[in-house]
């Protein structure tokens, strides 16, 4: 890519969200807004290499967008009204439209950006459509970049975005910020999209390293944006805290040969102190806003317990158990229950952990956990600590058989070796 193309791309990444949001305020259709914005990008790519980068590239993009938007809107109106002989009326309307557009683009307000985010994450869309649209409209990522990040063909992402825009248009989703009770539900939808993007980058075990890091960074950027746009929403700050705290361990999560390193075995000197600090600050913010018992806040508080401990042994497991208890109240799930059992095992000893595990892995709890490899690997660990090596071996072997993930299999095989060694000594 030439230097000028890189600069245009950079300007685009900085400006596209506000550009699309400003146009959408008038067009009321984010699909049309995005297409117009794309046209402007194409125009910049054609003209800037010849004319040089304008003194104020943002203003250039805005002006070009304005011209195109007004043209498009006029054309639309012409079609509707071409048989009516009310030229004067039409002219007045065009003028008004032009003014509205001027105003919208001269002063893109934060609400426009917020409306864009709420619309891209609208519950009427399939989750994968929300993710693709968010990365495209608010992240400024190209279809090709999104495809690389999710390891799917570019065409698939293109279709997801196309379908999502079509759904929004057909469902007449208004371009607005939800109010009242609706707001809470919609904020949750936005947050879950952001967290999904983060986890896609954080937990994926295949794919290009830099692209996965890019997804985490993008989710963090979205989180920081939201914290500015919705400063009074505790769960927004809590999710940001959770992402910062988890991301701060990134450098420690892979060993020399790319193998996964689990939290207790990580070299804590590789954790990013400044990022931990940011996460802690966001968590405090969420708690001060009275959101300490929220789902993300509790998860972030658990992460914070780990990050505060200078060694694995210093971890405050008692507190972690309490936090999991609270999480079981607000958002009970088999995974939360499983993690709680691990914490109980650490806080009160392996026998107590095993009891906690037996309590959840009953037939009554449903089949959710029965075929889940982590259930068996956790039980195997607890049994090993109790010296019941034979049973431990069986559990770990069952776990290996239940996971398709190669890295997990490797980790479990290591565990198996440890059990053999312990059994012999």
């Amino acid at each position, binding site marked *: 890519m030439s230097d000028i193309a890189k600069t245009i791309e950079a300007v685009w990444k900085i400006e596209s969200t506000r550009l699309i949001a400003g146009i959408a305020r008038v067009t009321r259709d984010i699909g049309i807004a995005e297409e117009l914005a794309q046209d402007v990008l194409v125009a910049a790519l054609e003209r800037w290499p010849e004319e040089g980068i304008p003194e104020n590239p*943002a203003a250039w993009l805005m002006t070009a967008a304005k011209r195109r938007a007004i043209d498009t809107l006029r054309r639309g109106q012409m079609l509707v009204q071409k048989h009516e002989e009310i030229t004067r009326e039409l002219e007045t309307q065009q003028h008004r439209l032009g003014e509205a557009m001027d105003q919208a683009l001269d002063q893109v307000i934060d609400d426009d950006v917020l409306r864009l985010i709420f619309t891209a994450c609208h519950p009427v869309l399939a989750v994968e459509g929300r993710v693709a649209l968010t990365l495209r409209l608010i992240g400024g990522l190209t279809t090709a970049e999104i495809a690389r990040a999710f390891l799917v063909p570019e065409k698939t992402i293109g279709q997801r975005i196309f379908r999502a825009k079509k759904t929004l248009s057909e469902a007449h989703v208004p371009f607005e910020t939800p109010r009242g009770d609706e707001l809470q539900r919609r904020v949750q939808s936005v947050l879950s999209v952001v967290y999904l993007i983060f986890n896609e980058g954080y937990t994926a075990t295949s794919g290009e390293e830099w692209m996965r890091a890019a997804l985490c960074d993008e989710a963090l950027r*979205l989180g920081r944006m939201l914290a500015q746009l919705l400063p009074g929403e505790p769960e927004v700050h809590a999710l940001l805290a959770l992402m910062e705290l988890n991301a701060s361990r990134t*450098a420690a999560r892979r060993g020399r040969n790319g193998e996964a390193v689990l939290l207790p075995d990580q070299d804590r000197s590789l954790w990013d102190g400044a990022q931990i600090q940011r996460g802690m600050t966001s968590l405090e913010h969420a708690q001060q806003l009275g959101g300490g018992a929220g789902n993300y806040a509790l998860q972030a508080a658990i992460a914070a317990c780990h990050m505060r401990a200078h060694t694995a042994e210093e971890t405050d497991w008692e507190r972690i158990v309490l936090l999991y208890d609270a999480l079981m109240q607000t958002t009970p799930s088999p995974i939360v229950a499983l993690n709680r059992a691990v914490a109980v095992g650490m806080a009160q000893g392996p026998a107590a952990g095993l009891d906690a595990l037996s309590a959840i892995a009953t037939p009554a709890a449903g089949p959710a956990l029965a075929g889940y490899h982590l259930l068996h690997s956790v039980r195997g660990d607890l049994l090993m600590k109790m010296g019941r090596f034979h049973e431990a071996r069986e559990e770990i072997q069952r776990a290996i058989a239940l996971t398709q993930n190669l890295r997990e299999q490797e980790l479990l095989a290591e565990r198996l070796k440890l059990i053999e060694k312990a059994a012999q000594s």
Partner: protein
Amino acid sequence: MRFMMIVIPKGYESAAPDAVPSAEAVAKMMEYNKALQKAGVLLALDGLFPPSTGARISFVDGKATVTDGPFPEAKEVIGGYWIIQVRSREEAIEWARRAPMSSNELIEVRQIHEMSDFPEDVQKAAKGFEHQNA
């Protein structure tokens, strides 16, 4: 990738110890900081007291010598910095271009080393260092 945008204001090398920017300059700066924040790219920022209140510690053959500010021989001094997280060097430069600086001020944009950028032996040598703010 993280970048530091380092502000180098001309004349700051000889600024009085109690020199403060004008209210107008601060207001403009706040607007810019807000834009960085709203874009989700701002990680940290700070402004520094003039060098006349600082000290330089120079080293010759392992021996440290302390000189109090101001430093008449210094041509450029740092006035403050931002740390931003962006997707490319070009994006960092674009943000720097938008800063509300006055005549003769300049911003130097430098990428921050991530541990993974270092060769293996350097990473090993850095092992065991605990961040104080952790």
